[in-house]
């Protein structure tokens, strides 16, 4: 299992994502955003951070990085692609996921652990969880309010494409408490919370570790 972690200028959760992927037993490595070679990745992770300083809109400029052509091809081939926080914003800007992430409803940057509920186990990144399972992971974002038009939201619900919801409090005003979604093909997942920052007990929670355990999930399947 080869997991590529893409680094944009301004990524700052790349090392954490790499460590979490490596801890799952994967061969994890970085790909610089100027490269178009994903080096045979089975899985691609777009990590959190502030790519291009969030200039214009979070993710708006990163989505045109050369690597994104290869990332889009990887997704189109049905291979797993995960966007965490800024990575989720990049995936929405790239229209690999529907909707958008805008300024938190309360305006403040929110950095604290939140409770999440797993809404579907039918994605590569949630196959190791059970539906309804509650997890604790940190969020750390200023622009995490998921928005989409009503037709898109209805389709996400109807098609079981909401992957995580906030429970016990919505930190950013996201529509329908959405914390993470998947695409029609179910191979692309984006979420605002940080599973890599909850990947071992020493960090306060290991609830996120299974997101990266694709090798184990594939072996079970």
């Amino acid at each position: 299992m080869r997991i590529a972690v893409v680094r944009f200028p301004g990524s700052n959760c790349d090392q954490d994502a790499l460590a979490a992927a490596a801890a799952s037993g994967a061969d994890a490595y970085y790909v610089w955003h100027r490269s178009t070679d994903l080096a045979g990745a089975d899985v691609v992770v777009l990590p959190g951070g502030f790519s291009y300083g969030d200039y214009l809109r979070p993710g708006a400029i990163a989505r045109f990085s050369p690597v994104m052509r290869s990332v889009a091809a990887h997704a189109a081939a049905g291979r797993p692609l995960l966007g965490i926080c800024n990575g989720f914003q990049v995936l929405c800007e790239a229209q690999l996921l529907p909707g958008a992430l805008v300024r938190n409803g309360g305006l403040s940057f929110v950095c604290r652990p939140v409770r999440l509920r797993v809404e579907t186990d039918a994605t590569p990144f949630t196959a190791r969880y059970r539906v309804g399972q509650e997890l604790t992971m940190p969020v750390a974002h200023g622009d995490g309010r998921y928005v989409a038009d009503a037709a898109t939201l209805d389709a996400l619900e109807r098609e079981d494409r909401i992957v995580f919801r906030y429970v016990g409090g919505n930190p950013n005003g996201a529509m329908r408490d959405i914390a993470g979604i998947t695409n029609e093909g179910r191979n692309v997942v984006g979420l605002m919370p940080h599973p890599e920052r909850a990947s071992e007990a020493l960090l306060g929670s290991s609830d996120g570790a299974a997101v990266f355990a694709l090798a184990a999930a594939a072996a079970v399947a």
Partner: protein
Amino acid sequence: MKFRARVRVMPRASILDPQGQAVAHALGELGFAGVTAVRVGRTLELELEAASAEAARAGALRMCERLLANPVTEDFALDAVEAQP
């Protein structure tokens, strides 16, 4: 020919604009009565080389659609395309 294009990007009316609400609140606190709503967007000024004003406008329009505005959350207006001396 040189042109300057001004692009106004605004959050779509259907999407809550907490920045605008905060500014409206602050104006009220400062004693400015009668402000019923504020919305915060951004203005971009582009300096362009193009063969004609039409070409400059068409180019700026494509830039808005591709990058400058997010079609999910924002509306844009291409306010002015002016020739520069």
